């Protein structure tokens, strides 16, 4: 088998390794084919039919995400027939979707909404029965609203292929098709461990992170490293009005991709715990009183200097922390060695 094959997409040639899909080949050329059920880190499924293209020798319209590129293949991605078919697919999805975008957490951040806008779907001509389900929100972490589900299966595949917990899967057939835990139970009580990776994969508001659901649209996202275990997952802190309101992940993180665990995704609210200390405390007559930084630092410096003068530097010790940054650990050991003059520095995780 040749190690490259050449095909033509919209009149331009591209060489790709065998096994490449037409979608991936088009993206190499910078040609944008809209998608909905496709995610680059999951197995292609060809479920939604949004990425339809024409290829010579292929009957009808084919899903670019599952169509293997072939030598000499001639593909068109943007004809009137293709645009009409894609718009119809999206229109049909909208016909079976709540029309309350303003009330949805994903408003202005929704792939279905964006597709409708991109494809010029403004009115829905189909009137008929719509699916009706109660949302599953009986847990502190995830809201699952099957009425907003477009049956793309991204959550099913992420749960099977990435998190490998196999909690979410298809239930029923046809119009009644939906994604649920086994036996159509709520998430709480199923085998779900609330990693929330399905939330990161959902294109609509069908799966939402509760903290963000409640907070509204964030002002900015800041990529950082998780403060819990040693895996070092990267994620985005979502910030609104100077507060961390939630955590999102995507496939670009080097270590974890879109995977996180329940702690990283849902445990960061400790940052805004009402128990946070906000001023230095000094104990006077057995009780803490708030004081200024100037007084507190002055007191610490004076006492340390006094103890060093009276008992020598080795009468002072410090515990550094596996919770603090490298720079802070470096500084504390430098402080103890160069300023206090002792090697009495350790931390609790020295195994």
């Amino acid at each position, binding site marked *: 088998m040749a190690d490259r094959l050449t095909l033509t997409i919209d009149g331009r040639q591209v060489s790709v390794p065998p096994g490449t899909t037409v979608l991936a080949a088009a993206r190499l050329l910078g040609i944008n084919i809209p998608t909905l059920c496709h995610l680059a880190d999951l197995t292609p499924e060809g479920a939604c039919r949004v990425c339809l293209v024409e290829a010579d020798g292929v009957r009808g319209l084919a899903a670019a995400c599952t169509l293997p590129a072939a030598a000499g293949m001639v593909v068109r991605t943007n004809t009137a027939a293709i645009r009409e078919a894609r718009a119809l697919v999206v229109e049909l999805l909208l016909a079976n979707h709540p029309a309350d975008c303003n009330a949805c957490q994903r408003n202005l951040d929704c792939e279905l909404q964006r597709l409708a806008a991109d494809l010029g779907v403004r009115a829905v001509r189909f009137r008929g029965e719509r699916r009706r389900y109660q949302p599953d929100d009986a847990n502190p972490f995830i809201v699952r609203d099957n009425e907003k589900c477009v049956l793309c299966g991204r959550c099913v595949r992420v749960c099977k292929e990435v998190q490998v917990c196999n909690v979410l899967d298809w239930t029923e057939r046809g119009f009644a098709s939906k994604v649920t835990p086994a036996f159509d139970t709520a998430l709480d009580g199923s085998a779900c461990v609330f990693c929330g990776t399905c939330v990161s994969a959902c294109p609509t508001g069908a799966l939402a992170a509760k903290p963000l659901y409640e907070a509204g649209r964030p002002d900015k996202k800041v990529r*950082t490293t998780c403060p819990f275990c040693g*895996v070092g997952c990267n994620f985005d802190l979502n910030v609104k009005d100077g507060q961390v309101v939630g955590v999102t992940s995507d496939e670009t993180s080097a*270590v974890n991709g879109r995977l996180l665990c329940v702690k990283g995704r849902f445990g*960061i609210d400790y940052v805004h715990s009402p128990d946070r200390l906000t001023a230095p*405390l000094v*104990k006077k007559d057995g009780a803490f009183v708030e004081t200024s930084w100037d007084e507190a630092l002055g007191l610490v410096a004076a006492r340390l200097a006094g103890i060093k003068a009276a008992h020598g530097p080795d009468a002072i010790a410090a515990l550094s922390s596996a919770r603090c940054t490298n720079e802070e650990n470096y500084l504390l050991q430098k402080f103890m060695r160069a300023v206090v003059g002792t090697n009495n520095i350790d*931390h609790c995780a020295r195994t």
Partner: protein
Amino acid sequence: MAGLATSFGSGAMTNSIGEIPDNKVMFVIGANPPEAHPVIGAKMRQALKRGARLIVADPRKTELAAAAHVWLRLRPGTDVALINGLLNIIIENSWHDDAFIAECTTGFAAVAAVAAQYPPDRVERITGVPAPLLRQAAEMYATAERAAIFYTLGITEHTCGTDNVMSLANLAMLTGNVGKPAAGVNPLRGQNNVQGACDMGALPNFLPGYQQLKWPDVRQKFATAWEAAVPDKPGYTLPDMFDAAVRGDLKAMFIMGEDPVLSDADAHHVRKGLESLDFLVCQNLFLTETAKLADVVLPAASFAEKDGTFTTTERRIQRVRQAIAPIGGSRPDWRIICDLAARLGYPLTYGSPEEIMAEIAALTPVYAGVSYPRLAAAGLQWPVPSAGHPGTPYLHENGKFACGLGYFQPIEYEPPAEVPDADYPFLLTTGRILYHYNVSTHRRAARLTAHRPEEKIMVHPADAARLGLADGAAAAVASRRGRVRAKAQVTDAVPPGVVWMSFHFPATPTNEITSGAYDKVTKTYEYKVCAVKIEAAP
């Protein structure tokens, strides 16, 4: 850290997390990644889905133990005997890698002599693991084209923790499973920056980058850079500090970001040590149990409120980026240290953490090529010896160990410091659950607390029946050091005679009953084994 540093010359995960889905054989011992390192747990499940074979050594029926091809349900604290038994079977069957042993290691003969003393029937008597299972595990690990070992605190939090680690290093060297992808010996670090705190020399006997304090040229290098003498006498380790405080030799402590009263073993001794001090300063986000004992408490900013770096379990140095302003009057730890140094007559005038990292890189060979611009996209895995170096996904390439040759260490089995007896007939072992993190999330992380509000003591059904303990009933667990209460969870995840608890919940301060015994080298506490009694406590 000390165990691997002795055997391989470098105390860190040899391989990378990204290699895990491609692993062919995984040997997970004393680790529960699906709960304690969930994303590594997911990567291991990906490997299983792709056909990897899994060996798990764990007294508890964890998720991975249940999924394992071979599950070695050893008695807690008998790891060395188990591993020596594996060495014995591998050598008996000539499954070892003669070429690797000859070219890359030293000390094999002594280890072979010790291993000869651990035939499978003796190992079965010590560990409780049936000999046929041990043979299966040995064959699966040793005859694989490549195989990786993963461990965590189930290996290190023993009086024989360093011995356990060196035994695992022996196993990997015996089979040539070091210095290539999807292999190696991989300690999974429990906290976000354990690796970094060690790397940065927050240790009484090492300067940054594991440069030995005892070497005069190392001390001279730092003294020159810092324009201050570096004392040559090694400092107190953490357990030594509390002993010295009780004796009256230690007068003051500065505790940044830790809560030893809740997190260290034998809490009563820790508290007594801290109460003996003339002066205690704590720097923390919260008024912790430890901070309550302090004379001065300095409010620190959280990770979301400052810039910096953490170094992950796979030696990856990654950026921490400020997202919000410090809460209230709190300040980042690095700024507080700078201000304090200035008041003691030693100005530290860094304008940002990036400037501190530049100094670290200049003085620390394994971090020499690190700079913030280079960390921007995906971080870098040390060693990064120069600015053009791409970082190091796996250590000891082609068996070239950081210390030259890999050192085989003959290790004899020694029982834990405290074993069950007539008065305290149960063995307590401890660990983490998925929904909490050490002592810091309970109550403060409201959603996690709502989902999992309290401790549950795992008790085997046979023991529960004998004690008259129903699932969910109130129980008390007592050791020679203290007594704590929580609800019982009746489950065959623990073997008969063993109870299991986490240590996340202030209402059940498990470390008031754990053992204060510690490893003779690292002085890591033996959290994993102590003798207790348990009773219904309505």
